[in-house]
Each structure stands twice: as structure tokens, then as C-alpha cells.
């Protein structure tokens, strides 16, 4: 996972693989997928006519050694029948007696066995793809992979089926994958793919081979996938849009328990079609219920779907998968689309939902509540409601209960009790539902609490904005700002909290400090508090508790006790923002119940701070909402060089909009925007976002309801002044706009004209002033009109645009938007002029200039380019050039170059200057360097000009001073080092009279 990797990177360790041979390679010819006259029988025998008729693909290379053929080969082919993609593979195996095939069942760890892995990217953009792994016993693992493959969701289940077979010297598999599971709606007949093999039967250790040559022994490299072309494939019937089920609820319809949910369907096939829509509920692979009905629509028509699944009352408990499947009428066995949602299917005839207090069923000391208000949801049929009575009582210790009796019940029956002068402590709303015949139907006791005052109380208001000590608070900050307290790999980064605070940032999430000794954590939180920064930390006291395996089960009693103590210890610290529950748990997949249990502990011990959870999928937000109060997804657009982004900027909109639908809109919406260069982590063609794209991401999230942002990640942005300075400036603008950003309750969508324009907009009201946020999500320049409400003023100020004003005409603001441009219009001249985009640009330019002002000729900003002898094998592999750049990006934080493992000394790192430079001094920061030379090249040959000497006063620094040489390039040649390899964090090269190095001195 990216975040596990980054924790290691925080210690200054990273690995990359040299891949010079891949630079500028031509695109390979597509592998063709013919249409089979007759679909193969899935028996693992490969004796079907379709396999005999067509050519096999082979030539697997060793993963990580792309010029070497695998010692033991694999061959495969694909075919299709218009509804399914079929795959056959034959794996040669001279050691059949050692073949490993122990994993059984669905979604087991088949990669521990001899297996074949198939990667299918239907859109060919590298943003997301499907991953299938099949072992030599035919067991299937499938996952939906996102963010270019860095995160996966194995809870996604396709209809893929497989069978395996064995011969004397080989084994085989046959597999069928429904096109419906590949979401062919946006795909054409051309996809991208790879096939890999993990050979455990090999003598001397595992052998990994791949069809598409790969620079590292890591399959999830979408940039190296190869084209797959479906021949004679009419995919039009897959061109449907089907929304995942949402708003699940369990009700009683007559005597029948029924699961209801909503979806939406659109026909984009090009013609009128008759479909069958089937809603179903499954738990742990068992079908609990389903209901099918017909649907007929013309092309272009769409309609909401009301899903209904009758359920046996005994099964109406716990969590289950609610699925909607659409198939063409008469072809129900081959769906065209399938979506699902993991949700609670608990049934109770009555439930109580408090609307005041609106958060955690707690009345906070800073909350001036006049009445306890709520709704009794009665899950009976209309007939059942007739004549029934609801008896309610608000019970407080030492007081007479206050009672209500309500007849004329509705499915949602409101109630209220006076709330003034309620005592601190536990209170109850007791409810009894009595039928028309006087017999009780159900009883319920709903707990609420009146809380004492608490310094640093952080709670959600009814509109899901955050209040700290009763005042509006907009968290705007970073992941992973290093504190002064602890060295990272021997380096300290003092002053980062002060710098963050000076830059207007007020919140941090940190992965590591929860697990440090108590006094260190206290010092860390004290430092944050001194700088006015709030911190979210894990509720877990031990790092092992956030490892994958413990998160897949419920906490043990001992773990629960430790979590309880940990929460009690830190709940009173004034720096505490909240509890960071999980980071992309769907990729594990973690058990939602794990976080639900921990959240209950947190609620009990610390009702004063929210739980925060980060997801990378929309389904994940629904699934894990039970464990949190704040959803803070990271819907990275994946910015790219050759196009705006692998995923559109509307990706943000989808996630933030969805939060309002998760668990009835209970959670606050924050966001983790992409504040780093994903290309640094192997994302093909990746780049850092530019300032205007950062602003667009944030305001787009605001438009759709976000009220907080924690950017990822401070640690990895130091080489990018546009990000470090850009987000700092955005923090200031956000402070100016805070009242408008938090005025969510007043928010109205503005329908942009023309209505197909990719501009999102929302209007907010703060007192007498209006604010209109508008963001262009495309890379095109557009002119759009933004209709204003009747009576709105005609003169608007454009925020931060240096005094620009705009006049509305005929009730509309018409304005030009550049690519990813954002405009915030307001009637408040004061707010509009508080910050300046011109100042932001100047600030960024100054920071870029300051980097160059150090006089470091090796810095990549000068145009210097790095090369290396090798790069370590890593799941985040990159080219030699990319790996090398981490040692001249001007930052000791985040990343470094690491040579291959095991190393083959001498290993080297070199930098080529854009023009010859006179060099007299070299400073290098690295690990594992026993002996190294500094070499220079002025013509064709390298000449050693000095040896690197360890700086005794610094844990990682090496220096060399020498008579000035004029060189076109410089090289650090490491002649000796340890067996585990060496790394360079940074190399600087100065002229004979250098300025002071920018990098911090050691302590």
C-alpha cells in the first residue's frame, strides 16, 4: 500500500529499478482476441476448438529483468463470445511434484501458490483496472484496483470462474470473465492488459515472470501493460450506466421483511432495449433473496430504480451485499452491468433517530439545546401503522420521566422533549410501539448523554461542520509534517510545525507518533499545540494493531483494553483533533466491524473528538462508515504529463457528493487532495499538480460540501515549490473564505449554462453577502454563464483576483475559465481583496528562485538530469532517470535513490549539467557508503577528482572539496558498501565559492 511504503520512506529509504531500455520504446502490437464460434468448456483441459484454432502468446520474461526470458515458459490466449472474455494458459513445469496449490475458496491468498495473474484495464488509461489471480487448483482471487494499481479492493467480486488441470510436465487454467464486470460502458474494443506468473515450484526460490516486460518484480505497473484488441466484438449492449445501490433500508411490508435501496439506470446502447433488473442480497457467498423485474428503455433514456428484495426475517441482521444486476431480457445469465453495496440489513420494527442533538447522541456543553428532538422510524406497513400507538419517555437519573404518547403514526413520526436543565450524564429515550389491538409490537431504549464542559471539545454541528470549543473550525493541513522531536533516519527537521502554522495550516495527520513512547508523543502534541496545530492520531497504541491482519478481525479484549487506555490518556490533550481510524481499509480488506468496535470504545471514552477515516473507493465509504464520524477520501485525479489526469477532476465531485448519501448523511465531508507527484511513486506519466489545479481540487470539493482538507503529503512535496507555497497560499485564502465554506446549510447548486459545460458551481450565503464558487474541471478554456437568484446584485467581486469585478447581465455572471480555473465571486469587497493570486504566483516564483539561489548545480531545477547504475527492486519501480532524480530534487525529505539489491559495486549516481560547470565542492547525504569517489566528465571519460569523506558531525553527510574542475557531468562512484546496498538522499555540487547549503545542518 502506498501509505505503508511512505512510512518506510519517512525514514529516508526508497527503491527504484533502472530501466533505461524502456525510454522511448514503441507501443507493442495488440494481442488480438478473436470471437469464438463456441465458448470453451471450463474444465482446464484446453481441448476446445477455440484454443486450437488460434495462436498462443508466450515469451514471458523475468519480472525485473526484462531482457531475460523466463527459464520456464508460460503461454496463453484469449477469446470472447460477446458476453465473456475467456482465457487459457499453459504453464510448463519441470517440477510438478513441487507444485503448490493449497489455497481454496474465493479471494484467498492464491499468490502464495503457483498461480497466474491477469490484469485488465478496460479503458487503457491506467487509472483503475481489474486484477484476477488463479492458482493451480483453480481458486480465484479478484480485486478492483485503483490509483494506478497502488490500492486494491478484493471485496469486489466478479462473476469470473476458473478451472485448472495438470499434465506430467505442465498445468493449465481456463477462466471466463463477464464483460459486465469490466464496466465496458466506457471502454471500446481495445483494452490494456498483462499476464504474470508466480512460480513457487522453482528450485531455489520463487520465480516471477511476465508477458509485458516489467522493470520490477511487481505486476501493478499499468504503464507497462500492453494492448488487447477484441475482434468482432459488438459491445454496444454493455453501454449502460448503472449506479451502485444506495440509501439501503430494511422495512416490513405486510408480514414480509424487505430490503429496499435506490439505484439509477441509463441506456446508452444506441437502441431500445428490454432488460431484466435483478436486485439481490448476499451474505458470505449465500444468496439471501432476490427479486427481478423487467425494464425497457430507449437509448438515451434513464430512470431511477427502486430495488426491493424480500428477506427471511431470520437473515435480517448484520451486514450483507446488496447488488443490482442488469441483463438483456432473455440473456439473464450474462449481465451487462452489475453494481453492489455493502450495508446493514438489520431489521427492527422501531428505531429512534435524534435530530437534536444531531451528533453522537450527545448534548455538548457548548450546545445550547432547547429541545431534544428526534424521529421514530416505524418499519411497519401502512396497515400495521393504522391504530398503533407510540409511547415515549425521556428518562434522566433522579428525575421523573417526561412522557409522550403519539397516535396517528407515520413511518417517520417526530417527537420532542424539553432539554433545558437536563443533568450531565446518561439519559434515555424509551420507546414502546403498541398495535391497534393493544399488544406490544416492539420496545427500544435509546441512550443519549449530556456531557460536561471539555477544553478542546471538537464536535460536528448539525450541518456536519466542525466546532472546536463551540467555534467554527475548518481543518486545513497536511499529512506527515515532521515534528522537531525525532530524527528521521538520523535527520531532524526542526521548525516544520512553525513553518506550517505560519503558512496558515492548522491540522495534521501523522502515521507514526501514536506509537512512540508516551513522553515523546506528549512532547509532539505539546509542540503542535504551541503552534496552534491540531493533530489526528491513531486510537491504537501499537503499530501492530494497524497491520493488515488485526484489522481483518474484531479487536481482542486485551487490544480493546489497550485502545481504551490510550484514548483516555490523550483525550484531554488540547492539540487533539480526532482519532485517525484507518487508511484505505478496503484494500486490505479490513473488517468494518473492527472500526465499528473501536469507534464505540472512542465514543465511550472520548465523545469529545471525532473519528476520521480515509477511503479510496466510494463503496469503501459506505462499507466503513460505521467506524467513523468524518469521511475523508483521497480521490486522486492522478495528474499526468500528456493529459490532464488519468481520472477526471470530477472524480472529486463524485466522492464528496456521495458522502451526503452515506449512512443517511451522518458523516462530515473532508478531503485528502493530491498534493504530491504520483509519478514519484511509479504512476506512469505522473506529475505534480500545478497551483491552479491545487486550487481547483480544493474548491471543487468545497462546491460539493467538503469542510476540511488534509493534503497528502508534506513529506513528499518539498521538491515542488508550487505545491508547498501553493497550498500555503490556499490556506490563507481559505481562512478568508472560511465563513462561506462552512455555510454548507445555505449551499445551492448553480446550474451552469451551457448545461453540458464541465464547470461545477455552488452559491452560498453568509449574512448579507453571497459567494459563488465555480470550478472548471476540464483542460479546456470555456466561457460559461452562472445564473443568479432573483434579486441578486449585479456587481460581484472576484476573490483574490486583484480587484477584478464582474457585472451580471440578465441575472447571470458570464465569465471565462481557463483550464482547471476557479473563480469565487462575492458581494463582499473586503473578503475579495484579502488575498491575491498575483501574490501567490510571486510567492511560488520566489520559492523556485530560492532553490536555485543555493548555487547547487546538481539541482534538477537547473536542468541537471540524473542517471544511475541501477535501482532497487521495489513495487514502486521507475526508470533510472526517475530513480536518480530523488537524489537531486533538493529535498532530504520523502525519497532517495537506492541501488539494486544485492548491490554490484561499484554502484554510481551521476548528474549531467545543462552546460559545463566549474565545481569545487560536493556534498552528499546517504546511507551505506563505505567508500566513494567523486568523478567528473568534461569530455567522454570519467576522471576521479576526489574521495567522499564522512562528515563526523552529521549522521548522513559526506563531503569532498577539490581543485575546481570544469565538468559536463559529475558522478558519485560508490566502490564499497554493505551487502544490503546503499542509498543517496541528496547530492549537491557547488562552485569553488559556494553559498550556504539550503539543507538543514545536522544536530
Amino acid at each position, binding site marked *: 500500500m502506498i501509505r505503508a511504503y511512505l512510512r518506510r520512506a519517512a525514514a529516508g529509504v526508497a527503491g527504484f529499478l533502472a530501466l533505461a531500455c524502456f525510454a522511448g520504446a514503441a507501443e507493442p502490437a495488440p494481442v488480438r482476441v478473436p470471437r469464438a464460434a463456441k465458448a470453451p468448456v471450463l474444465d482446464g483441459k484446453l481441448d476446445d476448438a477455440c484454443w486450437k484454432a488460434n495462436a498462443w502468446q508466450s515469451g514471458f520474461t523475468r519480472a525485473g529483468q526484462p531482457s531475460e526470458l523466463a527459464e520456464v515458459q508460460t503461454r496463453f490466449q484469449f477469446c470472447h463470445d460477446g458476453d465473456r472474455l475467456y482465457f487459457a494458459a499453459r504453464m510448463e513445469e519441470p517440477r510438478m511434484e513441487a507444485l503448490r496449490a493449497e489455497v481454496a475458496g474465493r479471494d484467498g491468498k492464491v499468490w502464495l501458490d503457483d498461480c497466474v495473474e491477469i490484469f485488465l484495464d478496460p479503458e487503457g488509461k491506467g487509472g483503475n483496472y481489474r486484477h484476477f489471480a488463479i492458482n493451480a487448483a483453480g481458486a480465484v482471487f479478484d480485486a478492483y484496483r485503483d490509483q494506478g494499481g497502488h490500492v486494491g479492493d478484493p471485496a469486489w467480486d466478479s462473476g469470473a470462474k476458473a478451472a485448472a488441470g495438470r499434465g506430467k510436465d505442465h498445468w493449465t487454467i481456463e477462466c471466463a470473465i463477464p464483460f459486465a464486470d469490466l464496466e465496458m460502458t466506457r471502454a471500446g474494443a481495445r483494452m490494456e492488459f498483462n499476464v504474470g506468473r508466480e512460480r513457487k515450484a522453482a528450485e531455489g526460490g520463487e520465480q516471477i515472470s511476465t508477458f509485458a516486460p516489467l522493470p520490477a518484480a511487481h505486476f501493478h505497473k499499468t504503464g507497462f501493460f500492453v494492448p488487447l484488441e477484441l475482434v468482432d466484438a459488438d459491445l454496444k449492449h454493455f453501454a449502460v450506466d448503472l449506479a451502485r445501490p444506495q440509501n439501503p433500508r430494511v422495512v416490513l411490508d405486510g408480514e414480509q421483511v424487505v430490503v429496499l435501496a435506490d439505484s439509477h439506470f441509463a441506456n446508452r446502447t444506441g437502441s431500445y432495449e428490454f432488460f431484466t433488473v435483478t436486485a439481490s442480497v448476499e451474505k458470505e457467498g449465500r444468496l439471501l433473496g432476490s427479486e427481478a423485474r423487467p425494464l425497457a428503455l430507449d*437509448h438515451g433514456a434513464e430512470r431511477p430504480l427502486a430495488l426491493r428484495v424480500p428477506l427471511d426475517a431470520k437473515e435480517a441482521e448484520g451486514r450483507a451485499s446488496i447488488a443490482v444486476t442488469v441483463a438483456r*431480457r432473455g440473456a439473464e445469465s450474462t449481465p451487462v452491468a452489475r453494481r453492489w453495496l455493502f450495508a446493514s440489513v438489520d431489521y427492527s420494527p422501531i428505531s429512534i433517530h435524534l435530530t437534536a442533538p444531531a451528533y453522537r447522541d450527545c448534548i455538548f456543553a457548548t450546545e445550547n439545546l432547547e429541545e431534544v428532538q428526534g424521529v421514530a422510524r416505524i418499519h411497519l406497513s401502512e396497515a400495521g401503522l393504522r391504530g398503533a400507538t407510540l409511547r415515549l419517555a425521556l428518562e434522566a437519573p433522579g428525575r421523573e420521566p417526561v412522557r409522550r404518547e403519539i397516535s396517528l403514526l407515520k413511518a417517520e413520526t417526530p417527537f420532542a422533549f424539553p432539554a433545558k436543565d437536563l443533568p450531565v450524564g446518561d439519559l434515555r429515550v424509551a420507546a414502546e410501539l403498541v398495535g391497534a389491538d393493544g399488544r406490544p409490537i416492539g420496545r427500544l431504549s435509546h441512550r443519549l448523554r449530556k456531557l460536561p464542559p471539555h477544553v478542546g471539545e471538537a464536535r460536528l454541528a448539525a450541518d456536519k461542520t466542525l466546532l472546536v470549543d463551540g467555534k467554527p473550525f475548518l481543518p486545513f493541513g497536511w499529512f506527515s509534517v515532521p515534528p522537531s522531536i525525532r530524527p528521521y533516519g538520523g535527520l531532524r527537521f526542526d521548525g516544520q510545525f512553525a513553518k506550517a502554522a505560519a503558512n496558515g495550516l492548522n491540522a495534521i495527520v501523522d502515521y507514526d507518533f501514536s506509537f512512540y513512547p508516551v513522553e515523546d508523543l506528549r512532547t509532539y502534541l505539546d509542540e503542535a499545540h504551541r503552534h496552534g496545530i491540531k493533530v489526528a492520531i491513531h486510537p491504537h497504541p501499537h503499530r501492530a494493531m494497524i497491520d493488515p491482519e488485526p484489522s481483518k478481525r474484531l479487536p481482542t479484549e486485551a487490544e480493546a483494553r489497550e485502545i481504551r487506555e490510550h484514548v483516555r490518556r490523550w483525550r484531554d490533550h488540547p492539540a487533539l483533533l480526532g482519532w485517525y481510524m484507518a487508511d484505505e481499509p478496503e484494500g486490505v480488506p479490513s473488517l468494518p466491524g473492527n472500526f465499528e468496535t473501536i469507534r464505540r470504545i472512542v465514543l465511550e471514552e472520548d465523545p469529545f473528538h471525532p473519528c476520521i477515516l480515509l477511503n479510496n473507493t466510494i463503496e469503501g465509504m459506505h462499507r466503513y462508515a460505521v467506524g467513523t464520524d468524518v469521511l475523508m477520501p483521497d480521490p486522486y485525479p492522478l495528474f499526468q504529463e500528456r493529459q490532464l489526469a488519468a481520472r477526471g477532476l470530477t472524480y472529486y465531485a463524485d466522492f464528496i457528493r456521495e458522502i451526503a448519501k452515506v449512512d443517511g448523511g451522518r458523516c462530515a465531508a473532508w478531503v485528502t487532495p493530491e498534493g504530491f507527484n504520483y509519478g514519484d511513486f511509479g504512476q506512469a506519466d505522473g506529475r505534480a499538480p500545478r497551483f491552479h489545479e491545487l486550487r481547483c481540487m480544493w474548491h471543487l470539493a468545497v462546491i460539493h460540501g467538503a469542510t476540511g482538507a488534509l493534503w497528502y503529503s508534506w513529506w513528499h512535496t518539498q521538491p515542488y515549490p508550487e505545491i508547498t507555497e501553493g497550498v500555503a497560499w490556499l490556506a490563507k485564502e481559505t481562512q478568508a473564505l472560511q465563513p462561506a465554506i462552512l455555510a454548507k446549510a445555505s449551499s445551492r447548486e448553480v446550474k451552469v449554462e451551457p448545461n453540458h459545460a464541465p464547470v461545477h458551481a455552488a452559491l452560498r450565503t453568509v449574512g448579507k453577502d453571497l459567494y459563488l464558487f465555480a470550478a472548471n474541471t476540464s483542460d479546456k478554456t470555456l466561457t460559461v454563464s452562472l445564473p443568479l437568484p432573483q434579486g441578486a446584485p449585479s456587481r460581484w467581486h472576484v476573490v483574490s483576483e486583484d480587484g477584478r469585478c464582474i457585472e451580471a447581465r440578465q441575472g447571470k455572471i458570464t465569465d471565462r475559465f481557463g483550464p482547471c480555473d476557479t473563480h469565487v465571486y462575492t458581494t463582499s469587497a473586503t473578503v475579495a481583496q484579502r488575498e491575491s493570486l498575483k501574490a501567490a504566483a510571486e510567492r511560488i516564483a520566489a520559492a523556485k528562485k530560492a532553490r536555485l539561489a543555493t548555487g547547487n548545480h546538481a539541482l534538477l531545477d537547473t536542468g541537471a538530469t540524473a542517471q544511475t547504475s541501477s535501482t532497487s527492486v521495489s513495487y514502486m519501480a521507475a526508470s533510472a532517470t526517475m530513480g536518480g532524480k530523488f537524489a537531486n530534487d533538493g529535498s532530504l525529505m520523502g525519497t532517495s535513490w537506492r541501488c539494486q539489491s544485492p548491490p554490484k559495486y561499484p554502484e554510481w549516481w551521476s548528474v549531467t549539467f545543462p552546460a559545463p560547470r566549474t565545481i569545487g565542492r560536493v556534498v552528499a547525504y546517504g546511507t551505506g557508503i563505505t567508500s566513494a569517489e567523486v568523478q567528473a566528465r568534461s569530455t567522454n571519460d570519467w576522471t576521479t577528482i576526489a574521495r567522499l569523506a564522512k562528515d563526523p558531525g552529521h549522521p548522513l553527510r559526506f563531503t569532498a572539496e577539490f581543485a575546481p574542475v570544469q565538468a559536463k557531468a559529475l558522478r558519485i562512484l560508490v566502490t564499497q558498501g554493505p551487502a544490503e546496498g546503499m542509498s543517496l538522499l541528496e547530492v549537491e555540487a557547488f562552485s569553488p565559492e559556494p553559498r550556504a547549503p539550503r539543507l538543514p545542518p545536522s544536530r
Partner: protein
Amino acid sequence: MKNTPLLALLAASALAPCLAAAEPVHPKLVAHWSLDEKVDGPDLEIKDRGPHQLHGTLRNTKNAPFPVKSVKGMKGNGIEFEKEHQAWIEVKPDGALDLAPPFTIAAWVNPAEPGVMEVVSRKWDADKNGVRMRIESRGMGCGMGDGNEEFHLYSKDAVPLPGQWAFISVTHDGRQVRLWANGEEIGAKATSLAPTYACEGKPIALLLANYLGRKDAYPFHGVLDEVVLIGDALNGPELTNLAMKLKDGMRR
């Protein structure tokens, strides 16, 4: 070759045995105008494939270039009607057309624009007799009368939508009238009213694609295909099956 009325009659009579022999789309079919004719002249006969051979005549009120076109329909051809030309198909009154509950009226429609337009019109606006199915400004509706009272029902959904095909139906099972689009119920109201079909003693003609009265009032504008009358009140799945029978595998 220009289709003269004589040739059309000869062609029709030559075809008639074939048409009569085709299996009806429903055992209780009353009338089925498939609108497959190549319409290129006025007074063109529009064949009824039903058992009563209630053929209609294409008419329009203006001396204009032909106001209708044969276009691809949902099964074979359909007829595209232009609003300003106000053409229609007229079927002479016949006892077989006097539908009594249970009955179904259904047709494929693809309206070109929003607005009120007749699909099957056998009712005067100011009279309490007859039956009609039409597209309303938002959705569809029906009306009927039994001489003493009138009944009207409008859909809750805005179907059909301009530019999209929809299979619309009205059913009356003797207790309830329902409106349907694409096999889904979009309106229902209880009534036991059984329509009658004479106004001032004169039987009411049946029109397709226009109003019996002023032809510029609710002319159909769009494509019409496969109009059927059935002597039974079909339910949703039965209407879907009917729609499937009345559609071929042709794509646009």
C-alpha cells in the same frame, strides 16, 4: 413508381390473404395497424392486420407535399407525422371497435417535441362518449365517457419523452384504468365506466395521430408505429411481451 390508388388497392388485395394469415400478436386482438405501408400519397389505405380488417385511410387537410414519411419504426416501418401538415389515419366506425372493458390500447410512439398530441382518438372534447389515448404536455393521458360521465387519467411520470421511443398503453379491466409506458404502470384510477361510442346518435370515427375535431388542435408530431387494440386488459409483463413482439431486432 408512383403508387396510384388502383395499384395500391391491387397490392393491398394481393397482400390481404398474407396479412390475414399472419399470427395475431394477441389471441384477443381487435385491430393492429402496423403502419408498414410506404406512405407516399394521400388516401393511402393503412392495413389492419387484425381479424376484422378495419383498414384505415391516410388523410390530410392541405394540398401540400406529402405530410408523412415512412421511416424505420420499431417493427418494420413506422409513419412520421409532421405537426404543421396535420395528417391523420381515419378508420370508419365499426362495432368491432366499440371496446368494452376489459381492453387495451397500445402503440409505439416517438414524439418529436413536448406537447399534447393524440395517438388514438375516438372522443370529442365536449362530449361524454368515446375513448382516447394521447400524449400530454408532461407524460400521457386517457379519457373516456359512457354518455353520462367522463373519466380522465394522467400519468405521474413524464413518459414518453421527446426523441425517445416508448411503448404506451391504456388498459381498462372493468374496475381500474391504468396507464403504462414500457411495461411499467405510470398512472391508475378506479372506475367502472364502460365507454360508449356514439355522439348525438352518430357513431364516432376512430382517428390515429390526430383529433377527431379540429385537426390543428392536437396533431401528432413524431413517429407512430404498431397501434393495437386488444379485447383484454394486459398487465405489465404482458405488455412487455407484446412490445417485444411488436419490435424487431433492428437498431437505429
